[in-house]
């Protein structure tokens, strides 16, 4: 359980402007300098300018660790799921396939999985993660729950349902107040096209 004054990670996808400041800053983090571990997804550029940043969500029961045959993925006492341990990782990519958020990536050049560790070198000494410090839109924020509740209209939740699989994460996501859990139904994966942002249809008027 998180303490009242503890700094937490909050993602608000609706704020993201796709600028990639997070991607560029991630590789400046000392634990993995030169390698960016955050993902910035462009959803469907043909239809929309929507983008979404994806850090590791740091699951309470990390699926990546559960499926690792080499026991190479460890969670710290403060709930941060670390990158794979170099001596143990066998590069099998089970974690890559299993993570519901698509976070771990296998890096062939070092035959090892690397993933976001919430800038452990920074957060463990009271600094904020690089991505959530530089993010110019507030899509990524590292602050107290009290502060986020005071300054945002949405609510912060950390419960997800992927098909039948319930997942609880350390990282929060901002959602409208009526939402208690993010349900990701299997049939929605793969993407449906939308005309919501089609300027041509906006111009047709009412």
């Amino acid at each position, binding site marked *: 359980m998180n303490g009242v004054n503890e700094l937490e990670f909050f993602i608000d996808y609706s704020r993201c402007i796709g600028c990639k400041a997070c991607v560029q800053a991630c590789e*400046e983090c000392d634990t993995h300098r030169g390698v960016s571990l955050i993902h910035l997804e462009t959803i469907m550029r043909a239809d929309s300018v929507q983008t979404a940043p994806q850090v590791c969500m740091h699951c309470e029961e990390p699926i990546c660790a559960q499926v690792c045959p080499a026991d190479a993925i460890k969670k710290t006492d403060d709930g941060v799921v670390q990158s794979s341990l170099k001596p143990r990782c066998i590069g099998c990519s089970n974690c890559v396939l299993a993570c519901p958020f698509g976070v771990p990536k296998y890096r062939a050049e070092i035959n090892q999985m690397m993933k976001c560790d919430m800038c452990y070198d920074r957060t463990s000494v009271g600094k904020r993660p690089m991505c959530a410090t*530089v993010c110019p839109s507030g899509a990524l924020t590292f602050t107290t729950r009290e502060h986020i509740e005071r300054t945002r209209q949405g609510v912060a939740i950390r419960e997800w349902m992927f098909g039948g699989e319930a997942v609880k994460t350390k990282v929060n996501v901002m959602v409208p107040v009526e939402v208690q859990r993010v349900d990701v139904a299997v049939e929605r994966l793969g993407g449906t096209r939308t005309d919501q942002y089609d300027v041509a249809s*906006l111009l047709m008027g009412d």
Partner: protein
Amino acid sequence: MAKPPVSIPELVSKFGPRLNRVPATGWSTDVEPDRVVKTHCCFCGQQCGIQLKVHDNKVIGFEPWEDFPFNQGRLCPKGVKRYMQDEHPDRLKAPLMRKDGAGFVPVSWDEALDKVAGEIRRIQQAYGNDAFALLGGASLTNEKAYLMGKFARVAVKTANIDYNGRLCMVSAGAASKKILGIDRGANPWSDIPKAQAILVAGANVAECAPITTNYLWQARENGAKVIVMDPRMTPIARNADLFIPVRSGGDIGVFNGMLHVMIERGWIDREFIARHTTGWEQVEEAVRKYTPEYAAKIAGVPASMIVRAAEIWGPAPTSFLLHARGIEHHSKGVLNCMAAINLVVASGRIGREGCGYAMITGQGNGQGGREQGQKCDQLPGARDIENPEHRKYIASVWGVPEESIPHKGLSMVPIFEAIHAGKIKGLLAVSCNPMVSLPNNSYIREAYEKLEFSCQIDFFLSEAARYCDVVLAGSLMEEDEGTTTNVEGRVIHHQKAVGPPADARVDWQIICDIARRLGAGDKFNFNSSREIFDELRLASKGGISDYYGITWERIDEEKGVFWPCPSPEHPGTPRLYEGGKFAHADGKAHFQPVEWRPAAEETDTDYPIILTTGRVVSQYLSGTQTRRIGALVDQYPQPLCEIHPLLANKLGIADGDFVKVESRRGSVTVRASLVKTIRPDTVFVPYHWPLDRAANNMTVRAIDPISNIPEYKICAVRVSKAPAPHDAIAELEMQAGGVR
């Protein structure tokens, strides 16, 4: 002789743009910084606070500066990777002289400076003083901008100095001055989240002023309704409460239409208008015919959107207007801005907390760069070069006879027209790259080719520097100390992180050295940039942009000081026009009636599509710096033509196809990006690239009659599918103008 001495590919192979991908000390984390320097980003007008890590006189990385109030550690990708321009293989480290057929060869400073001074003298003796022109820039510190203005009037004695803020801020500035009396954003950014209605007109905030996004979103969290006007659904438009996909050049339709509805529904502050303004009757008369239906035809959007905009803006208790180049880059740019500002003054919502207006200044020192006297019509302190009192005061500061100060000279585009006409024969430029940034690019290239002598102070061999006889190796922002003035009017302090490399010199010393050779050494006897700032303070004293009370120490202590700040005891002025006191002599705001007129070049049957140009988030202006940073180039490597699928289908164009975008003046061949987020009558090409990838090959050389800003945001083109280009330019790396 101002032609490239060898072929472009040969110059590119020697001087770049090449990509720097690795920090000066590698990606290793073993190297501890000797120093961490609290300073500011060198790029846009947000001027975000940032800390640069320095080791062994090299900038090796950055750390966010969370205590700086404006951005609180936030940065865009350009700010994050800015340090990669230091220790760059393309960096100019010595003066260069053009040798026909051989390229640019390093020479001694004496040889280079003697040549520059000699050519200035020769040209002026042969053709008159005004035959030599100077170009400055809004990436210069206040100190350098001030020095350029003084250098022009006192050392070179030419009337013809202008700067690249002419391509950026002048429409906003002229409109703001006409109505409110001061060319500066009226409010600090901290007022934005306190506004209940926000109108963002022609500003791609997410890409061009990314830090401002958080201010907008915070306003929305506080309950504000946000209206965005743009021909493209930009990232901020996606979440706006009302997105108006206005036709480029149709903005006055929206503004006057909104005002029409506001008058009709009684959403006008008549008491404020009576007490604090003049000219309302003419405005009321002018907007009478702008019914939503009439206005909608001009704006190219449904009338209901204009009504809805008025319903959001009209009755709001607090409000904030933001506009940028989207409405300013027009041959009616000043009119567009005045129509927008009329909405603010008519509501009476200005000069209070959460109520106000700001233009989003684009360039790093876009604000300060337009105050210190490097504009063709201006003296320091935002003074008027034709006002006898102003001339007298500045003459006394400079210690020169008033009559020796030249009168108003030509602005940026007319300078190039005067080169074509044979009236201007020599050019010295700093902090600008007209070969990418000016419209109708082939015309600009031909002008360079007609010059007898051209010189540029530059840190990289920019596309314009290729057309020079002498290139003087100058300094990056982090290699010198000085001040800039951010988008809010907050004067801030850039610290020197490192010295210029090898034989490069700080810009102000170069300018002083030329002045000495021109016989004006006693007026340019500065030993430090601080001494220049102190003279600037005095020169600005009593002017509109009064810096007299601002010292570098105060800036550091107070994390910036807002001008006007007339005395050391004065707290500075974050918010202008408090209590309805405007800056005209009568203390009132002067409404300006605005009538829409067409663009210089509207579409026709031969050129049936609107081209609009702009920026992408990972590149900055002409790309001289950002097209050399690998991570930023990877993010958006080459210009794409955004085109709506409806239009693309009609033209038989698929996503990723090569297309030729062609106007009466020139063309580019680039790949198409099919997106539904743009109007189907409009295509968009970003402008950061040179040569056959330059969006400014197509743009029209038409300028606003008042501000002289070029019309970058609308011209007529045709678009067709094209074969993949394989010529020598196309084969260059993408950052150099190649295409893949």
